Structures are given as structure tokens and as C-alpha cells.
């Protein structure tokens, strides 16, 4: 069982949280302009890292806000949690075709996160 530190509420039991999979996957801005392979990459392909991995969690039985976490999937140890829209506190390569980290839309992300800060 994990103990997860919600950036808004503090540390709680895993059972209070829902999982959102890989973080920092940006929806293509012009889906009609990209190739089938790029669309497949966005919809289906996942980094599925063994090691340091950025992922999304939602504090469903608490503040109900989404946030990101860095966790080592080889040990299940949480390294950090951080607010949507922030860059991961350690570099991770995931989320895009070329392996480069994706820029998040900071404004939209802040909306998503309810504009709040811890």
C-alpha cells in the first residue's frame, strides 16, 4: 500500500486516490494536420518506463484535484509529487515521439488544477 503526498492535502493512503497513467502527454493541437503514426503515438503508445516515471494521480476521496508524481516503477518509491503545469523536479524522458519532454500548456493546466497552489 502506498502513502501518497497530495500537494494540496498532504500524505494520505493510496485508497483515497485514483490513477491517471503517464503524465505530460500533450494532446496534438492540430490533430487533422498530423500523420496516422503521430496520432497512434498520442493515443496508444506509452513510455511504460521501468525506473523514474512521471504519472498523474487524482485525490478522488479528498480534494478531488489532479496532480503529478514522480515514482520509481522498479521499487514503487515516490520521489516527489508536484502541481499540474509544473515541470517534473527531476528530468524524465517520456510522452513524445522523439523522447523529448513535452511542454505543457501552463495556463490550461492551471485551470485544470483549479488554479490553486499548495
Amino acid at each position: 500500500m502506498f502513502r501518497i503526498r497530495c500537494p494540496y492535502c498532504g500524505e494520505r493512503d493510496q485508497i483515497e486516490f485514483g490513477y491517471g497513467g503517464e503524465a505530460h502527454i500533450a494532446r496534438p493541437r492540430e490533430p487533422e494536420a498530423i500523420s496516422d503514426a503521430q496520432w497512434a503515438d498520442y493515443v496508444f503508445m506509452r513510455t511504460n518506463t521501468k525506473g523514474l516515471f512521471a504519472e498523474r494521480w487524482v485525490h478522488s476521496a479528498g480534494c478531488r484535484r489532479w496532480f503529478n508524481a514522480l515514482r520509481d516503477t522498479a521499487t514503487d518509491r515516490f520521489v516527489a509529487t508536484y502541481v499540474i503545469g509544473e515541470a517534473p523536479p527531476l528530468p524524465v524522458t517520456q510522452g513524445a515521439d522523439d523522447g523529448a519532454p513535452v511542454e505543457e500548456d501552463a495556463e490550461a493546466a492551471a485551470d485544470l488544477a483549479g488554479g490553486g497552489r499548495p
Partner: protein
Amino acid sequence: MTRYSLWSLLREGFRGHTGWGPVWREAEPKPAYDAVIIGGGGHGCATAYYLAKEHGLTNIAIVEKGWLGGGNAARNTTIIRSNYLYDASAAIYDHAMQLWKGLGRELNFNIMMSHRGVLNLAHDDNEMRQLKRRVEANRLNGVEAEWLDAKQVAEYCPIINMSPASRYPVIGATLQRSGGVNRHDAVVWAYARAAHELGVDIIQNCEVTGLKIEAGRITGLETSRGTIRTPKVASVVAGHTSVIGAMAGLRLPIESHPLQALVSEPIKPVNPCVVMSNAVHAYCSQSDKGELVIGAGIDAHLSYTQRGAFPVIEEEIAAVLELFPIFSRLKLMRHWGGIVDICPDASPIISKTPVKGFYLNGGWGTGGWKATPASGHALADLVARDEPNAIAAPYTLERFTTGKLVAEHGAAAVAH
């Protein structure tokens, strides 16, 4: 190799079992092979066997990072069935079913195959319609399946809670009589022994750490025990498929999740079949030792730790007790997890890749055990001929780009 028979059993019985030899010989990695299979689970060993037996490729090796059959092969609950919805699924899972029927004889090994029947319960009208549709689809594909009403369910498996007052009353079920369970390690050993007999090298404690690729073609692999040259590599590593894929620069449509299972203390035979329920979300069979073998769905998060979380177990147990109130006083004996490789359409990948000579078999998720013989058979064909046969053809990597998915609802949720 000693042939196992009643005679050999009697002879060894009289000599105090001193004459049983090792089942296969540990091999040192050679500098080069005609083909190398990464992963010594059920699917990897089956692939090696069919490559040697049906395609005459005997200068080949299985490289396994741990011990043979210590991955999901050792951790699964061995439910065998072939009642999947779509044609592509029926073709591969029923091919496996037909192979399972003769496998013990073919490999001269008691794999404890027990065709005791698999029930998939329906708890509401919608589920009933879906399951009946599946029965009809199965029959059109020549897959054995039938529908039982509530009374017939109670007769087939008397310990199921049939009370109409229960939260999710049982209103019927599909039954596949040829479905059942077998012995996981016996299957792996049987394939390994037969493959070894045909000349296949089995190399344990040998982790693949990199792939050698020159001009878009595989030329060998790096392992914890040195470099091996080979023109053909087949990755059959289940939960680690993305890790090997990344060594070839591939991004794959796979996520690795923990899947947990547990067994109770042994009791006298009470559960005559395999019972699965999607809505209540658990399944249960009874091993020959008498333990109840219990499983459910995956943990939601990604992980490579072979460990899941307690809330999943709690739900699993609640579900099992809803279906079988008579188990409420039983103690649990053991509990474990494996890492399953989930594809978005709940169907596997048996495919060539953009790297010539590098083949992928993975994405079997929570339900690949039942397919072991057919998976190995189809992959061996692909490796030998460099072309997929009719069974493997729908399971390409390209389907995630073309959109021609095999969205197999028969494999959804708890139904491994």
C-alpha cells in the same frame, strides 16, 4: 532422456527414486546462434520447442534473466478457455485449446490438464445479452460454448450463492466444458525438456541488456553473460516487453501493471469448476491440493515490482464472499503478484517490427496463459518464415496505426 511411463514410475518407486535424471542441461551461452528467444516463460519455451520441432531450427537458445518459468508462468491462475468474441481471437485461443488437449501426450509430461469447465456468470439482463451473444459467436466459429440458466448453474456448481435477494443475483452463465486449469510449472518444464531434447540451449541467469542493430537489422544481443551474435531475436518477456522494445528504439502500446492472486488453506473438493464473474469482479477455482485459487483485476498503477496493494485484495475477497458465502471462515495461505503487459485492445502482439529479424510477442496482459501453445506455435512460424501465418496476421503492431484493433471484450475486466 528417460521417457516417462507407468513402467518408469514403477521402476523408480522400487529403487527409491534414485534414477531420475535432470530434465534439461544448463547451457553456457555460445558466441552465436541461428535465433535467440528472450524470456523463458511458457510462451518462450513453447516458441523454442515449435521452432526446433516444426521448422528444424535447433541451433537456437532461450535466454532467461532469472530461472525458467519464474515470471508470470509461475504466478498465474492457469484458467484455460477459448470463448472469446471475435474471429481473430477464436482462431488463436481455440488453436491453443486444441493443442492443450493433446499436449501432455505430445510432450510426454503430465501437465495436469483438467477440462473441468469454465462458468462466466451473468448478473443482469445486459450482461446476459452480451454473454449469449458471445455463445452464438463462439458457435459460429466452431468454439464449444453453451448457455446455462440459473437452475442449471446451481446444478453445475452447487456452492454458488443463487439467492435472488443477493446484491448481484446470478441469472445465468456461459459454460465452456473444455475449459479448465492445468499445472503452470509442468507446462514450462514439459516444453523446456522437449526443446532441450531437440538441441535447444536453455540459459538461465542471463539478462538481455541491449540489442545489437546494424543498418536496421538485428545482429545480436548484449547479455549479463556476454555478447551473442544472431540474425533473429524474438522477445517473449511479458511484463518487460516495453523494456526490451526500448532497446530497439520502439515505443509500444503496452502498460505494465501488477496483477495479484491468492490461495486459501486446502480444503476438501467443493468447487468442481472455474467460476468467473465480471460484475462482482472475482474468479475462483480449486487446485488439486484443495486450495481455492482466487484472482481479480489489475492494480491501476504501472509497476515492475511484482507487488500490488491491499485495497485490491480487499475488494477481491469481498467479491469472492459475495459469490461463495461458504468460504467466509477460510484462511488465506499465500498471496503474490506478477507484472502483466496490457494492450489497449486487450489483445496480444505477435509481430515483425521495423527492425529486421526482431520479433515481438507480448501484450497478453492478464490472460495469456491459456494461449501458450498457440502463441509459441504462431511465433515460431513467424520467426522461421519471416511472414505471419493466418493466426498471427491480425496481431501486428501496425494495427494501432491503421485502427484495425481486435477489441476483445471477451477478455475484459476480470475474465483472464
